Each structure stands twice: as structure tokens, then as C-alpha cells.
């Protein structure tokens, strides 16, 4: 023990919460994979490593050197045979992600092996990490700020590369910096207003009211732009949501299944809560796309069909794109389409005509309709390539440009930005009328407080609780 302590203290930098606990968790996603990683953090992790890890001797060195990846064997207590061949690395307190002494083990990914190793670590004095606990330690050690911590949560949740990029940008701090800057500008306005309250008799060369209002409007419009980027941010994080909708028997489910078969499904099939729609994630040329198969609309039927239609309406309203399917073999599809499209609102719509295999001359038919129609046959697979090409084009059209700006991906941030904007608007009215300036100051300070909750300047137990419960083990 004393020896390890020495190692720790000699390496220790200022920021390192030495919790008495040592925590462990698998940090790679659950399920079978080639390699799995296990992280240990806390006081005991070096001694646990030394107990179970027998490094293959390279030259004469048997010492564990910080940040040097060592190859060796994991051996359970009381056994002589290795459980698995592993790689291990030690990161001393103050220089690790969590700020604590930290060890990472990389073993083969079979669920059995991983479980055996983790159980052994827990038996040796570690406890299972709570969701988000590693990041919480990183936050507590001052290694990352609150908005960084949330970005990490998003990296965990990110499913595809494009998603990861947005989360990474966020993590690097562009977003923090941007919000900090807006906050600073806002504090400048508060100072102007406060000065006129505290020094009414002095000749304060405060900004003219017009220029003050101009600055307020600038900040407000930046905030609005930022908070509007949330739709894009949400798409990046949650995936682009495409609802396949249409009248009954247009072939919605056939298309849904076809797309699934051809693309890699990201998550296993989950039935909708009301059992009336199916939702799947597919990787469409690097975009995480969430396709939803909805119940047929406008069909007659009993209570169950009615419920299905209501939920279909709901899904359609929350989608980023509607793939509206029509049955080209149906005689009066054109008339139906015109009336159906009227009820779909402002969401972009891509009309897909199915069953071209059953039409004698679909090219001619489609000309009777003004808009563009993608013609496919779910049965033969004809036209599906075109459909996908169009889909990719529409998805990328609706994605925000990641390289040029900052994007809000957290719903909590979005609500804080909206609230800040609202407070600023209330204050602006008062400043414009030159009445109740102390109330304008109050509103502006509330807006600053809203931004503080994004950058984590103000500590509130509630926010921490919520953020850290959002994490799942293993990021």
C-alpha cells in the first residue's frame, strides 16, 4: 500500500479527487465485439492491476510505466492459468480522464470473458461504476466543464460518424466559447443598465439607448440562431427521422423491410409503444437515419385502426421527412394524392409511387401529376437505388453545416437558450420604454443565469443530478 501511495503522490497533479472508492465498468458497447475495454478508476486500481496482470517480460522491465501500453495476461486470484491475453495501461492521478488513478484493460470481446474479468475486479475491491460516474469524476476534478460533460454524454449516445463529429466539435469547446462570448456581451449590457440605476446623478457615458437596444438585438438574434440550430443538432444526435406514410396497402411495410434488408440496421427492432408502428435505425451513407413505418391513413376501420392513425399523425408531425407512398395501380391515386398532401403540413415530402410492376405504363401515368414522383417496385426492387439517392440528397440538404458554426444538440441547452431569449425580450421592452429599469436588470440577469447553466459557471445540485443520471456506463 505504502509503495503505491508513493507512486501516486509523486505523479499527482493538483486536480485529483482521491475518492476512497475504486470503480470499474466495461466501457465498450454491450454485445459481441472483437475487443472490449474495461476501465478502473480510484485509489486501488494500481494495486488491483498488479494483483491480476502479469506483463509479458520485455527485456528486463516488469515495472508498470504510466501511459505505456503493456501486453500480458489477466490471471484470476488463486489460479495459474490466464483468463485472457490482455493489454493494460496505467494513467496516474491528475493526468487521467477522471483525474484519479486510472487503469484501462483491453481484452477479447466475448461476453463471457469480459464478465469474468469484471467480476474478478469487483471481487478485488472495486465497485461497479454508476452511470456517468467516470465523467462525473472528470467534472469534479475540474478536467472538463459542464458543457463538455454533456457533450461526452452525446458521444456516448452518438450512433454514427456524422453524429460523432458534431459531438466532438462540441467537446473541443467551440460551443462553450461561443456561449461564453454571448454571455460576456450580455453582462456588458447588464453593466450598462446597472450603472444607470446606481449612478443616476453622474454623467455616465452610457451607450445611447438606441445603440444599447442594437446590442441587445444582436445578442438576441445570435441566441435565436443558436437555439434554432437545435433541430439540426437533434437530427445529428438522434438521426434524421423519415416517416413512411400513406393510405393502407400502398406498400409501406414492404419498402420499410426492403430498406432494412439492404442497409445495416443499427439497433434491434423495437415495436412502437402502441404496437402500431415500427421504428428502425439504418446507416444511410454515414447518416443515422431513423425510419418509421406508420399505420395506413384514411382507411376506414374500427378502434384499433383509429388509434393507429392517430399515432401515425403524431409521428408524421415529428418527422424530418415524409416518404408518402401511393399505389400507382390504384385507379384514382392522383385525386387522392392531391387531397392527402393538403393535410400533411410543412414537413418536406417525398412522394413515392409503388407497384410499377403492376402498371402498364407508369411513366405516362405519373405525368398526370405535377410534382415529382419516385417510382419503385418493392416487389422487384426496381427504382430503389434512385429512391435511396434522392433520400441521401434530401437528408444532407436538411442537415446543418457542421464546419461553419456551432450546433445545439442538447434539449436542456435549447430550453435554456429559449428562456434566455425570452428574458432578453422582456428586458428589451422595458429598456425601450425606459421604464422599470430595475426589472429590466432582473430579466437580463436571469438571462445570464440561463447561459451560466450551460457553461456550468453556477453550480446547482439539480443540474448535476440530471446530467449525470443521463450517462450510461462505458463511454
Amino acid at each position: 500500500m505504502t509503495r503505491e501511495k508513493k507512486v501516486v503522490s509523486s505523479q499527482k497533479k493538483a486536480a485529483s479527487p482521491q475518492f476512497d472508492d475504486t470503480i470499474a465498468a466495461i466501457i465498450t458497447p454491450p454485445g459481441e465485439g472483437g475487443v472490449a475495454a474495461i476501465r478502473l478508476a480510484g485509489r486501488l486500481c494500481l494495486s488491483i492491476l498488479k494483483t491480476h496482470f502479469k506483463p509479458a517480460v520485455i527485456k528486463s522491465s516488469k515495472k508498470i510505466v504510466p501511459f505505456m501500453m503493456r501486453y500480458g495476461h489477466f490471471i484470476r486470484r488463486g489460479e495459474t492459468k490466464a483468463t485472457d491475453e490482455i493489454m493494460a495501461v496505467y494513467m496516474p492521478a491528475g493526468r487521467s480522464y477522471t483525474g484519479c488513478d486510472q487503469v484501462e484493460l483491453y481484452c477479447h470481446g466475448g461476453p463471457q470473458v469480459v464478465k469474468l474479468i469484471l467480476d474478478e475486479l469487483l471481487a478485488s475491491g472495486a465497485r461497479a461504476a454508476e452511470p456517468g460516474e467516470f465523467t462525473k469524476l472528470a467534472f469534479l476534478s475540474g478536467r472538463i466543464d459542464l458543457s463538455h460533460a454533456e457533450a461526452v454524454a452525446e458521444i456516448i449516445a452518438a450512433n454514427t460518424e456524422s453524429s460523432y463529429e458534431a459531438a466532438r466539435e462540441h467537446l473541443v469547446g467551440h460551443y462553450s466559447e461561443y456561449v461564453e462570448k454571448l454571455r460576456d456581451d450580455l453582462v456588458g449590457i447588464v453593466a450598462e443598465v446597472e450603472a444607470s440605476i446606481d449612478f443616476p446623478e453622474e454623467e455616465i457615458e452610457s451607450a445611447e439607448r438606441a445603440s444599447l437596444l442594437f446590442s441587445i438585438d444582436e445578442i438576441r438574434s445570435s441566441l435565436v440562431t443558436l437555439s434554432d440550430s437545435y433541430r439540426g443538432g437533434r437530427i445529428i444526435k438522434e438521426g434524421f427521422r423519415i416517416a413512411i406514410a400513406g393510405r393502407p396497402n400502398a406498400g409501406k411495410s414492404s419498402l420499410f423491410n426492403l430498406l432494412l434488408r439492404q442497409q445495416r440496421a443499427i439497433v434491434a427492432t423495437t415495436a412502437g409503444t402502441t404496437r402500431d408502428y415500427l421504428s428502425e435505425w439504418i446507416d444511410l451513407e454515414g447518416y443515422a437515419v431513423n425510419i418509421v413505418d406508420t399505420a395506413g391513413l384514411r382507411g376506414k376501420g374500427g378502434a384499433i385502426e383509429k388509434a393507429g392513425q392517430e399515432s401515425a399523425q403524431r409521428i408524421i408531425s415529428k418527422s424530418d421527412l415524409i416518404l408518402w407512398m401511393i399505389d400507382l395501380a390504384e385507379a384514382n391515386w392522383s385525386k387522392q394524392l392531391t387531397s392527402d398532401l393538403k393535410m400533411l403540413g410543412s414537413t418536406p415530402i417525398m412522394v413515392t409511387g409503388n407497384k410499377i410492376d403492376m402498371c402498364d405504363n407508369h411513366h405516362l401515368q405519373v405525368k398526370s401529376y405535377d410534382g415529382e414522383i419516385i417510382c419503385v417496385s418493392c416487389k422487384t426492387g426496381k427504382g430503389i437505388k434512385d429512391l435511396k439517392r434522392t433520400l441521401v440528397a434530401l437528408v444532407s440538404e436538411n442537415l446543418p453545416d457542421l464546419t461553419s458554426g456551432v450546433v445545439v444538440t442538447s434539449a436542456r441547452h435549447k430550453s435554456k437558450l429559449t428562456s434566455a431569449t425570452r428574458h432578453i425580450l422582456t428586458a428589451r421592452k422595458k429598456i425601450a420604454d425606459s421604464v422599470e429599469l430595475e426589472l429590466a436588470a432582473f430579466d437580463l440577469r436571469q438571462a445570464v443565469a440561463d447561459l451560466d447553466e450551460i457553461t456550468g459557471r453556477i453550480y446547482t445540485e439539480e443540474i448535476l443530478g440530471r446530467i449525470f443520471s443521463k450517462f450510461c456506463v462505458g463511454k
Partner: protein
Amino acid sequence: MKSADRMTDVVVVGGGHAGVEAALAVARMGRKATIVTIDATKLSLMSCNPAVGGIAKSHVVKEVDALGGLMGRAADSTGIQYRRLNLSRGPAVWSTRIQSDRIAYSQFVVDYLAQQKNVSVLEGIAAEILTENGRACGVRTESGELVTAHAVILATGTFLGGLIHIGEKTIKSGRRGEPGAYSLSESLISHRFELGRLKTGTPPRLDGDTIDFAKCELQPGHEPPPYFSYRSTMREIDQVPCHLTKTSVETKKIVSDNFQQSPIFSGKISSVGPRYCPSIEDKFYRFAERESHQIFLEPEGNGTSEIYPNGFATALPEEVQCQAIRTVVGLEEVRLTQPGYAIEYDYIPAYQIKPSMETRRLSGLFLAGQINGTSGYEEAAGQGLMAGVNAVLAIEGEQPFVLDRSEAYVGVMIDDLVTRSTTEPYRLFTSRAEYRLALREDNARDRLNQYARKYNLVSVEEGDAFEDIRTDTDRVIAALRKKRVKVSDLGELSQRYQRAEMVTLDNMIRQPNISINEAVQLITKLDPTIADNMEVLERAAIAIRYRGYIEKQQREIDKFKRQESELIPADFDFSSVTGLKREALDKFVHFQPGSLGQAGRIEGVTPGDIAVLSVFLKRHNESR
């Protein structure tokens, strides 16, 4: 110690605004207080401008008044001009300011103390803090007199190590023409206190008979005169006006040409003065683009023609001062009655006191006023009163009286002092109060009457009488909520209501376009029976006007109180919190915060530090 010349309960060093309130609080609580001061005829003498109150400061005066203090009554009784400031803003930042007759003000306090039981005044200069068993137990004066006591309050103002600067000249003095206290600093250092140095300044005084007031802008007082104290009754006086004038192009030239003659620039003074109250040379230096600065001409009293030129503080050589001020509009022929000067003095950076004003190093020793790094009569009075109360509570073994930031400006100030490093003399502003809408002049007694009663700072009758006003106010608020009036009777305001024909008075008061005063006048016209007291009606109207905001603010206050209630035990060892950043650890050890909330307000401490601290604190408390 047995041969003490005098024995008292609390010895107060200094007879200024802090010392007087401290002694009076001690006396009201039934203990004996002895003030040791250089000149017993100059109690509460206003060393700088002859006015009490102003933005945020008047809030403190009202708080001192609600807690039984004297400052409000002294200003009310000796005022020569009364004004309410910020009336174009809302009632939370309305402030009162009274120009008082400097001599009359001091005389009022001298007379008041003479008839106050339990207070005595000893002329002398304190030279040494006496201790017994590690506790402060009295003072020795330079002439060798001993005053023994159970507690000592230092309220030394600019007298502690005072050094006056006028140009190149320096004079050891605590205030013009008066000696300072020098041995006392040595005594404090020997008790291992860290002393710092601050600077402040004052303008020259002018002979009003040599001023051409016709060239200046008249600033009359307000009628009826606003008073600080709820005890004050209407005085029939002719108010004296102030005047507003400004510096000229020549002023700028003369002052700028002589920067090097000012000790502030020549390097003779290295200590820091207040940014909010710069000397005239500082103004021209730091704001070189400004061609002119305004100067307020404030009368020093009724029986004198002396004028205080507010805004012209200076430490330039006397002849330069004279030359420069004669370039100010209206002052071309002016005669100086006394030169302006800068003064440096010792203070004890306030991390060395607890929120009770008692020093950490030496129990039984309390500090109030400029010695804590503050400036201003009102700030001093507030601290003096708190120190007096807490000295008595300490003697009696009771818990200290600490006001928090949501209760009073006094609480905001003391919390700021103990959680921040003072680098310049500290002054209150309303913007320092995060719960500003709740800390108003009009509700000072609502906030503090309970404490005034608890500590016997007001008589039982006074305490009860206010509770009646409070009940009355609640009744009027309810009546205003019920009473409906015709929209057509509301005059211009009726345009706000497009559809409604009838509207409640409550709703009318909440319209932003109508001021509280207009609302109150309109109500008395529409329904004279609703309140028989204008003060009560105004209180009710303000409460209604701010209701929505106060409710919002209340949620923040509740959150704040939760963090304040997470106490850090006095024996808590911050160095056991291993995860803290070095800077945060140093700050915690330095300031010794008493609660998690207080710890979070220390500059340079991050949310992460507080999170770590809270984890260890929880563990510490569980293991006990």
C-alpha cells in the same frame, strides 16, 4: 488588570459612525459601553461630504433605523435639504439622501449619547489591545489609562496609521487638524494581524460668499421632505439648495500639467483608492477624452457659508488646488477655507473577521467600518451596529446575529467582506444585491423588525406598533385585490384596457405605464376609504407591483438558503479535501467559509471545487 482605571462591558475604539452605533446597540441590549475617542465633541463628525444616504446607502440607513440605530434620526433632525433619488426607476431602487448641517449632526449625536444610559465617552488615543487568556479584554490609551472590558470593538476609521498627503507634503494625522493612532497598529501586528493600506481623499472646502451661484444650476430639495426614520415627525424648515457646476477647459489643463505634483502619480501613495470616487486628477488622467466633469456644491450647514465641492477631491499642492478650482464655472473668485487632501490609513483585510465581525485570531475583538476596508458613513454604521450586537451576544455566550444576503444590504456587505479580497475601499451599490427587488427602503422593517424585537434593539411598543402596520398593509392589499373600478375612471390609463369595463385596483397598479405614485394618487381619488394611511397604501402598492417578480426571486432565495444551510463546521480541515485545485484550497483556508453557499461566492472558486467540497463535507458530517 485589577488596577484598571475603568471597567465596562464593551470598549469601543473610535467615536465615528461605526463606533457610535456599536456603543448604542450595546447599551440598548443592557450592557455598558465606553467609547474611547480623540475628541469627545466630534462624535459622528462627517469627515467628508455633509450628506447621509444615496443609492443603496439609504437602504442601509433604513436598516440601521429598523434595528434601533441612530443614524436615520440624526440625519432627519439636522437635515437642510432632503431628496429622493431614482424616482424615475422602480421603488426597489428609490433612495433617500439628506444634506445635513455638519456641526448640528455631530451635536445631535453628542447630546443623544449624553442622555443615553449605559454609554460613556473617554477622551484618549487607544494604543494597545489588552488580552487575557487569548481573549481581548480592554485597551490601554497613549496616556496610560486602562479600560477593561469583556469585548473590544475597533472602529478606527482613517485614524489608524493615518497619513495625510497634500502635494509633496505629508502630515501624520487621522483627519485634518487631528492626531492619528499609531501604536495601535503595532499592537495589532503583535497579535499577528495582517494589516493593509488604503487611500481615500476629500476636496477642499470653499467660502460660499465668494461663489457666483448664479452661474450654477440650482438643485432644490424635495417637498414634502423624505425622512429615513419611522420615528421622525415633520419638521418645518426652509430647505437649502445645492448647486451643480462643471470644470472648464482650463481646469483640465491645470490639473493635467500638474499630475506629477500629486502624490497619487508621483509614487508617494501606492495604496489603492476607490474607483467610484476618484480624485479630480484621477478623473482627468483616466478619462483623458472627457473635457469636463460636474461638481456639486453642497452647503455645509445653516450657520456657515462653507461649501463642499463634491467631485473635486484632490491631493494636489494647495496653490495648484486653488488655481485649478478657480477655473470651475462660478468659482472664479473662490476662497479656500481648507485644502483638499488624500489620506492613507491602515486596515485589516476582512478575511480576518467572521460574519459576526469578530476577528478569527483574537476572540472578543470585533472590527467595524473602515478598518474592514469599507468606505462610507452608512456602511460604517451598519457594521458598527452588527458588531455591537454581536459583542454582547458573545459575552452572553449566545449565537451570533448574522443577516444573510436575502435579508438586508447589511448582510450583502458583510458577506462580500468576508468572502472577497478588498483591493479598494468597499462601497455598497444596489447591483451588489442579487435580491434587490426584495431589499427595499419601504420594507426594511418588514425584514428586520423580528430581529430588532428579539435582541431588544427597539422598545416593545415600537416593535408591536410595526406589526400593526404590517397587518394593515395586508388588509389593504386584500382590499385592492377585491375593489373593482370603472375603466373609464382611469384617465389616460384606460387605453390599456380595450375590452374590459371594470378592472381591479390590483390590476391597475400592475400596469407598467403608471408609476407607484400616480397609482397611489389615483386610488385615493377613486376610493379614499381603502387606506387611511398613505404610507400603508404605498407599501401595499409596491408589494402588488413587484408581486410576480418577488415570487420569481423567492424561488432563487429558497435555493440560496438551502446552500447557506449546508454549514461547514469550524473544525473542518480543508486540506483533507484532496481533490481541490491548489487555488481553491488556498482560498478556502484563507477565507474559512462557514457554509457551502459562502464557499461558492469566493472569487476563483469553480463549481467543480464546490462539488468536491460538498462530497467531502457530506462524508465528514456522516463520520461524526
